[in-house]
C-alpha cells in the first residue's frame, strides 16, 4: 500500500465518520400517519371535522416535541365514503407512503374493508367515526381499534331516556341502506323494545338518497309518534327538510344516531332539526377541563364548533401517542399490546380501550337540540353502556 492509497483510505474513513456524525445529529425520521377520510361527497362534512380534530392534535403534539422526539407527519387521502375507493388508497398509504398508522375512515363499510387491508399489511388502524357494532363485534380484527362509541353504546342511553320521555312510543325506523344503517337500527330497536317501545315499521334508503318523499308513504301508513333515523351528513339535511315540507314533523319525536345532526349540517336545517334527541359520547357543553381547553383551541383555529367526530378524531392522536410511548416503538405487535387496556385522556374524559374487542369504553350522554344547541339531558356510565364483548377472533 503506497502513501496515496493510504491517504485515500484515511480520507474515506474520515468522511464516513463525519457523515454518520451528521446523521445522528439530524432529527429522527417523522412518524407517518395516514388519514383516509371523505373529503368529497355526502360525508364530506364529517371528513372535515375528522381533519380538523386530527390536525389540531397533531399541531399540539409536534409543538410539544412530537412522539418520542419524532415529529408526526399526516398524509391525507379522499375515500369518498366508498369502500371501493378506500381500499386501493389504503393499500397505497401502507405500501408506497409507508405510513405507521392509519385513521380517518368514516363509513362503516369503508372501515371494515380498510381493516382487512391493514391486516394484510400488518399495520394498525383506528376509526374515530364508524358506528357499526360489527367492527368490534363479529367482524372484529386484531389490527382495528375504535376510539368512538359504537351504535350499541349510543342506543343504551337513548332507549333509557325514551322509555321515560315517551312511555307509549310507537317507533318507525329509517336508516341508510348499508352496514352502518342496518347496524344502528338493529341496535336501537333491540334496546328500545327491551324498554317497552313498540316497532311500527322500518325502511332503508340508499346512501346519498336525493328524494325521500317516496319513503313517506310507509311512515304515514305506520302512524308513529317517534321516528328513529341514522342517516348522516347531507342525507340528514334532505330528510329533515323534506319531512318538514311534507308536514311530517308535526307531533313526531325524532331521535337518532349521534352522527345524524352535527354542527356541520345543522346550519342547513335550522328549525327543522329542533328537538332532535340522541345518545352520544360527546357534547360541546361537557364540564371537563380537557374539553374546555379543546373547544377553545378548536374554535380559535377553525372558527367553528367541534362535534363528536372532531373530538374523537382529536382523541385518537393522543391514543396513538400514549401507545407508542408505552411501547417505546412503532412496531405493530408492540403498539397493539400497548393499546390493549390503555387508558388515556380525551375531551370526553378518560377512555379505556377494552382489550377483548378493541372498543373504547366511555361515558355516554343523551343530548337534545334546543335553540340550535345540544343540551345534555342525562348521562350513563361507560361500564353500563358498553355491553358484552362479542369478538371471537382474538
Amino acid at each position: 500500500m503506497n502513501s496515496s492509497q493510504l491517504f485515500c483510505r484515511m480520507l474515506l474513513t474520515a468522511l464516513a465518520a463525519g457523515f454518520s456524525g451528521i446523521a445522528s445529529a439530524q432529527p429522527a425520521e417523522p412518524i407517518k400517519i395516514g388519514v383516509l377520510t371523505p373529503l368529497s361527497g355526502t360525508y364530506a362534512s364529517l371528513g372535515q371535522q375528522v381533519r380538523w380534530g386530527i390536525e389540531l392534535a397533531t399541531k399540539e403534539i409536534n409543538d410539544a416535541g412530537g412522539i418520542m422526539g419524532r415529529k408526526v407527519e399526516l398524509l391525507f387521502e379522499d375515500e369518498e365514503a366508498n369502500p371501493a375507493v378506500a381500499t386501493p388508497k389504503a393499500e397505497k398509504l401502507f405500501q408506497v407512503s409507508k405510513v405507521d398508522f392509519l385513521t380517518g375512515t368514516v363509513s362503516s363499510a369503508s372501515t371494515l374493508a380498510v381493516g382487512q387491508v391493514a391486516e394484510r399489511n400488518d399495520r394498525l388502524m383506528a376509526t374515530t367515526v364508524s358506528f357499526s357494532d360489527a367492527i368490534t363485534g363479529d367482524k372484529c380484527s386484531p389490527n382495528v381499534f375504535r376510539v368512538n362509541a359504537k351504535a350499541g353504546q349510543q342506543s343504551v342511553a337513548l332507549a333509557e331516556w325514551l322509555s321515560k320521555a315517551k312511555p307509549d312510543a310507537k317507533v318507525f325506523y329509517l336508516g341508510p341502506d348499508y352496514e352502518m344503517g342496518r347496524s344502528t337500527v338493529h341496535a336501537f330497536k333491540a334496546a328500545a323494545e327491551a324498554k317497552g317501545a313498540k316497532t311500527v315499521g322500518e325502511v332503508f334508503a340508499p346512501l346519498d338518497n336525493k328524494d325521500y318523499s317516496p319513503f313517506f308513504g310507509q311512515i304515514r301508513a305506520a302512524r308513529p309518534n317517534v321516528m328513529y333515523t341514522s342517516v348522516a351528513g347531507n342525507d340528514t339535511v334532505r330528510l329533515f327538510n323534506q319531512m318538514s315540507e311534507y308536514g311530517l314533523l308535526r307531533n313526531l319525536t325524532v331521535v337518532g344516531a349521534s352522527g345524524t345532526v352535527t354542527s356541520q349540517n345543522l346550519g342547513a336545517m335550522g328549525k327543522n332539526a329542533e328537538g332532535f334527541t340522541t345518545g352520544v359520547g360527546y357534547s360541546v357543553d361537557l364540564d371537563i377541563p380537557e374539553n374546555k381547553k379543546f373547544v377553545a383551541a378548536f374554535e380559535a383555529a377553525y372558527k367553528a364548533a367541534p362535534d363528536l367526530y372532531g373530538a374523537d378524531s382529536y382523541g385518537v392522536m393522543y391514543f396513538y401517542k400514549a401507545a407508542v410511548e408505552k411501547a417505546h416503538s412503532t412496531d405493530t405487535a408492540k403498539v397493539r399490546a400497548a393499546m390493549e387496556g390503555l387508558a388515556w385522556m380525551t375531551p370526553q374524559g378518560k377512555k379505556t380501550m377494552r382489550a377483548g374487542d378493541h372498543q373504547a369504553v366511555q361515558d355516554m350522554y343523551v343530548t337534545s337540540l334546543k335553540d340550535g344547541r345540544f343540551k345534555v339531558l342525562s348521562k350513563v356510565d361507560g361500564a353500563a353502556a358498553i355491553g358484552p364483548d362479542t369478538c371471537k377472533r382474538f
Partner: protein
Amino acid sequence: MSGFIDTLQFVFAPQIINGLSIGVAVVLMALGLTIIFGLLDVINMAHGEFYALGAYVGVTLMAIGVNFWVVLLLVPLIMAPLGYMTERLFIQRVFHQKDRHILTLLLTFGLAIVLEDVYKLIYGPQALSVKTPIGGGSEVLGVFFPNYRLFLMAIGAVIIVGVWLLVYRTSLGAMVRAAAFDKDMASSLGVPVSHVYAGTFAFGVALAGLAGVLLAPVYSVFPTMGKDFILLAFSVVIVGGLGSIKGALIAGLVLTQIQAISSLYISPSWTDPLVFAIMVAVLMIRPQGLFGRLGHA
C-alpha cells in the same frame, strides 16, 4: 269506514299526488328522448347528461345572481343551440352510414361519459343544492303538500300540452312529422330535412335542460344526476312505444303511480326493479310498446 276514508286521505292521497309530481318530471325527460328517437331514429344515450348540463348551467347563472324564473327561461335558449351543434357536428357524421343505430348509440354513449367527467372536473363531485324558489306548503285534499311540487305538476302539464300542440297542431310540427314519416318525400316537397333533424335534436336537448333546472331544487345537482333518471325515462319510452308522445305521457304517469303505490308495501328502493320488470314483460309481449311511432300514429 271512517278509518278507511282516513287511510285513503292520509296515506294514499299524498302518495298518489307525490307520484304524480315525480311522473311529470319523468315525462319531461322521456318526451325529449322519444321525440329524438321518433324523428331521427337515434337513441340518445347522452340525454341524461344534457339534463345535468341544464341543471349546471342553471346553477352557474344563479350563482352570478340571476333570478330562478329568469334562469328557467334562459336555460332552454342556451341549451337549444348546443343541441343543434351536437347534431350537426357529431351525429350527422355517422347518421348516414349503414349501421347507424349502433354508431349513434355508441357516439352518444361516449359523449355521456365525457360530459359526466367534464362536470366532475369543473364543479367537483359534490352535490350542489339549489334553494327551493317557492317555499312552504299547502293543504290539498286535506293533506299538507310542498308548494314547489304543486308548481312542478302545473308547469309540467303546461309544457307537455305545449309540446303536444307544437307537434300535432302547427305547420312546424307537420314538417317534423313529415320528415319522420318519409324524409325523401318531405325533402322533395321543400322541407329542409337536415335543419329539421338538427332542430328537433335541439328541441329535445332544450327540454332535457329545462327539466334539469326544474328538478334541481328537488334532487340537487351532481355529475351523475343524469344516470339516476335516464334509466327510468328509457323504461317509460320503451313501455310507451319508442317515438310516441302519447305513449311517453301515459306510460310515464302509469309507471310512476305503480312505483308510488307499491312503495307503501315494499321498500321504495325495490320499485325501480319493478319498473324494469314491467319493461321486460312489455318487450316480450308487445315489443313495439303500447303506442306507435311519431308520424305513424
